[in-house]
């Protein structure tokens, strides 16, 4: 599978995750979010930025609890929970947010 954006072709897997992670940019994220029916707000971008930062260092998406805590520290304690993340990303912070952040799909019992 693939999609075209601004004259560039982006290859994706069956679930719509980018195959080549280096191709990611904000326009791609915006496009993927629209496909998911999401309106990207600053709060959404905070999550994406954190995921990318973490992935850069650890080559894996962070544990959900690490993500909620980081978001809580940045945006206020009342936002540092799973519910807040699911409100932002109804498809799940691990899967939907990873897709938009250009991370590979988490595999396993998740």
């Amino acid at each position, binding site marked *: 599978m693939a999609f075209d954006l601004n004259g560039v072709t982006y290859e994706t897997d069956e679930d719509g995750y980018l195959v080549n992670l280096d191709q990611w940019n904000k326009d791609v994220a915006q496009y993927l979010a629209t496909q998911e029916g999401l309106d990207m707000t600053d709060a959404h971008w905070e999550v994406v930025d954190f995921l990318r930062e973490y992935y850069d260092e*650890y080559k894996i998406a962070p544990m959900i609890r690490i993500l909620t805590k980081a978001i809580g520290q940045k945006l206020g304690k009342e936002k540092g929970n799973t519910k807040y993340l699911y409100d932002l990303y*109804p498809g799940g912070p*691990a899967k939907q947010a990873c897709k938009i952040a250009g991370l590979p799909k988490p595999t396993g*019992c998740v």
Partner: protein
Amino acid sequence: MAAKIETETLTGDINIPSIQPGATAHYKSNPAKEDHNKFLGFPGARVENWREAAVEHMGELLGKYKSLRVFMDICVRCGSCADKCHYYIGTRDPNNMPVARQELMRKVYRKYFTPAGKLLPDSLTGASELTEAVMTEWYSYFHQCSQCRRCSVYCPYGIDTAEVSMAAREIMDHVGIGQKYCNEILGKVLKVGNNLGIEPHALKNTLEFVEEDVKEVTGADVRYPMDEKGADVLLVAPSADFFSTPHIEGFTGYGKVFHEAGVSWTVSSYASEFANFGMFIGNYDTMKKVAQRIRDAALDLGVKRIVVGECGHAWRVGYSFWNTLIGPFDFLDPKYPAPQHICEFTLDLIRRDGLKLDKSANDEFTVTFHDSCNVARGSRMGDMPGGQFEVPREIIKAVCNKYVEMDQNTIREFTYCCGGGGGLLTDELMDLRVKGVLPRANALKEVMDRHGVNTMAMICAICKAQFTKVLPNYGIPMETVASLHQLVSNAVVLGGKIGV
């Protein structure tokens, strides 16, 4: 985003629906990529002579596993199993009746391996060649079986549908028809050490996070060590415990229990996975390779005991198959079972009065327990028959004040699968997963309405992931799903009785 999946309204009753032929014939797991298959030693793509190769391999399996031949021969179509499968109840597709699912293989067996099937017309024997259409059915419906073995409990002959499904998947892999979910994951565990692909430095970071978090919440210095040589216990957890919620809450609990027991322990970055999908694909060699990492890690770290976390199918592999696969465990301390389940460890400590527990910490919860299929029907725990049912319940009752059982036909050996086991916990099968949870969701709904249950505890990583994802489709919040050791974690008073 995918369209909302249509669900039935929960009534609290489990009704057996009328059939709807072909309702789920279009369900199809994503096929494995060439490199996924090749890494496991299977052909990268479907081989040219796949029919002959599949029949030949079926013959090999029939020779190697006498049980499979017996299962092919002895079914009398009594129908006892027909209404026992959660996928049949949820999808109404008659091919999800266990007898019909087996028939997909049995008709091929008759054609090539029985005198009547070889000599008489198919119309008389119900035999069938392995055609393209039959293979399409195999791929679809043998990936609509979670190998939970509920049907086998009701079969008067004890036919094990899971074994038939495993054999079918093994035959398909053998001719290059692999399923992506299982085969990609098996590649990761064999390369990186866990299903998620968490590298050692990331695992270390996660463990440090848990350590800091526990310190912050409780003020206690509970350790979550990695790769510590000379520790007494090697803890092998499903890697979802390092990633998902509520899994991590359970893992946090294991650490508190070890801390209170005064036992040194460690996880291994080399063998950071208890799950063993080799069983799901019915491939002995792969299952052995995955398990071998754990033996190697235990020897390398010089531990005296292996304790394992909350993972259903892996407990079946560990309890029932490890000794043959990677035993003997003569290098471990013979005073303890090898492996020992974390529930056995915790209950032993509770019985010896070695844990100070504050049950009121769980007073906001009215708890029920979901028996996970592979624990319930493929293993045991503790030192008495039925221990796999009693051990977890005894722990819950020791840490919670309010406990309620679901309907007796849906628990213990009669438990319903979560709908995501057996290598089906993948997004492209979401429709099946949502429908497959129906009987369990109804049984849960009944105790929610009648007794105010708001928490369902369990000891399986797949169950936790599946329920948190699919129950909200029925209006049941994901917070209902809990790790058993999450409840233990809540109730443990740290520093209460260290080292008793």
